[in-house]
């Protein structure tokens, strides 16, 4: 899908997200693919906080705030209602789409998500991953990467930020044998748009995990969001992949990685890392890719 085929309407407009917010770019792009008959469900998190400040209501389509843990279960209900309503009105192009942060997905909403996948509900769940609980001021989530400084994993002389690796959410979801799962980044927006479009045509539960840098939490200039979101995939610290019909597939397999050190060093949250810390990160990257390249294709 190219730019001219995309819906000209804007469905996420006038919102109060910080300048250069990656999450708002993901929401905006996905809604332009899904169109006005998408009903969006947003749990507590930045996207609901910046989108609904009565009387400033920034969603052009129908959108609702769910409780924190219940994004997927509310999507189940929304989809059931939409299915009946659409049958009565005689249309088919409706979607129940959720936009949850990394904390809302990998920690707090994981049970509801797992249940929805298990039931096979016809919903699209999009996790915009800014790698911490950003809306409450940058606390570590299950998707915060190793070494990152957050307010709950401060960098000191002994412990250099987060000591745990990033949860492997994509494979956790895929292990449910979901009809479709994909990873993406807002740095390659066409790839993300294509995956949303593909997911919108598949029946059953769909999950898309999109990296969405947060200038405030990552310590980068507001103009660098897209550049950094590209670099994370180029340097191999993120991967673009799909899971479909029981098979994993890389949608992008870089011949050579760009410097992971350069990617880390440009961000405030990694500023304290020593050379050894960076070597540990690069080593785990290489082991991950070795496994991916062997097992997926």
């Amino acid at each position: 899908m190219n730019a001219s085929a995309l819906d000209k309407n804007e469905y996420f407009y006038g919102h109060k997200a910080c300048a250069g917010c990656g999450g708002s770019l993901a929401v905006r792009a996905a809604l332009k693919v899904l169109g006005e008959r998408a009903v969006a469900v947003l749990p507590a998190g930045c996207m609901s906080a910046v989108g609904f400040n009565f009387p400033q209501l920034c969603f052009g389509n129908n959108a609702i705030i769910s409780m924190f843990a219940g994004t997927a279960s509310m999507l189940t209900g929304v989809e059931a209602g939409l299915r009946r309503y659409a049958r009565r009105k005689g249309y088919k192009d409706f979607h129940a789409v959720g936009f949850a942060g990394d904390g809302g997905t990998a920690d707090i909403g994981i049970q509801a998500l797992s249940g929805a996948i298990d039931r096979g509900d016809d919903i699209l769940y999009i996790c915009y991953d800014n790698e911490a609980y950003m809306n409450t001021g940058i606390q570590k989530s299950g998707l915060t990467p190793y070494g990152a400084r957050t307010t709950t994993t401060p960098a000191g002389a002994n412990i250099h930020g987060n000591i745990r690796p990033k949860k492997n959410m994509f494979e956790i979801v895929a292990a449910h044998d979901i009809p479709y799962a994909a990873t993406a980044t807002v740095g390659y927006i066409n790839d993300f748009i294509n995956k949303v479009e593909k997911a919108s045509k598949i029946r059953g539960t769909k999950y898309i995990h999109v990296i969405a840098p947060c200038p405030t939490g990552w310590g980068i200039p507001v103009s660098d969001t897209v550049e950094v979101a590209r670099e994370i995939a180029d340097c191999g610290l993120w991967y673009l992949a799909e899971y479909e019909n029981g098979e994993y597939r890389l949608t992008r397999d870089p011949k050579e990685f760009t410097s992971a050190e350069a990617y880390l060093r440009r961000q405030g949250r990694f500023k304290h890392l020593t050379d050894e810390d960076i070597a540990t990160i690069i080593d785990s990257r290489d082991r991950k890719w070795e496994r991916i390249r062997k097992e997926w294709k």
Partner: protein
Amino acid sequence: MKPYIREKSTFTFDEIPEDTCFEAGYLVTVNAGWRSVTPYVDTEKCIGCSQCYLYCPDGVISMEGKTPVLDYDFCKGCGICSKICPRHAIEMR
């Protein structure tokens, strides 16, 4: 169509809906005041590739034919468009 500024912007306590439903796309404030630098498109250099339109987190760039048009009411001046432009046709001033 996109959410737009409405005339009625203040609500008394009694006017606030009791249920949590309200009209979608109801805007009462602009974001222009957030901006410290402003993007300007050099139409001579622009090739109409739509990259700025695709990557704007606020959706303030629309393509009119091959020309990007900016809604300065809602641009926050992040400068992503300027960085992403392959022809360096957008200057932040």
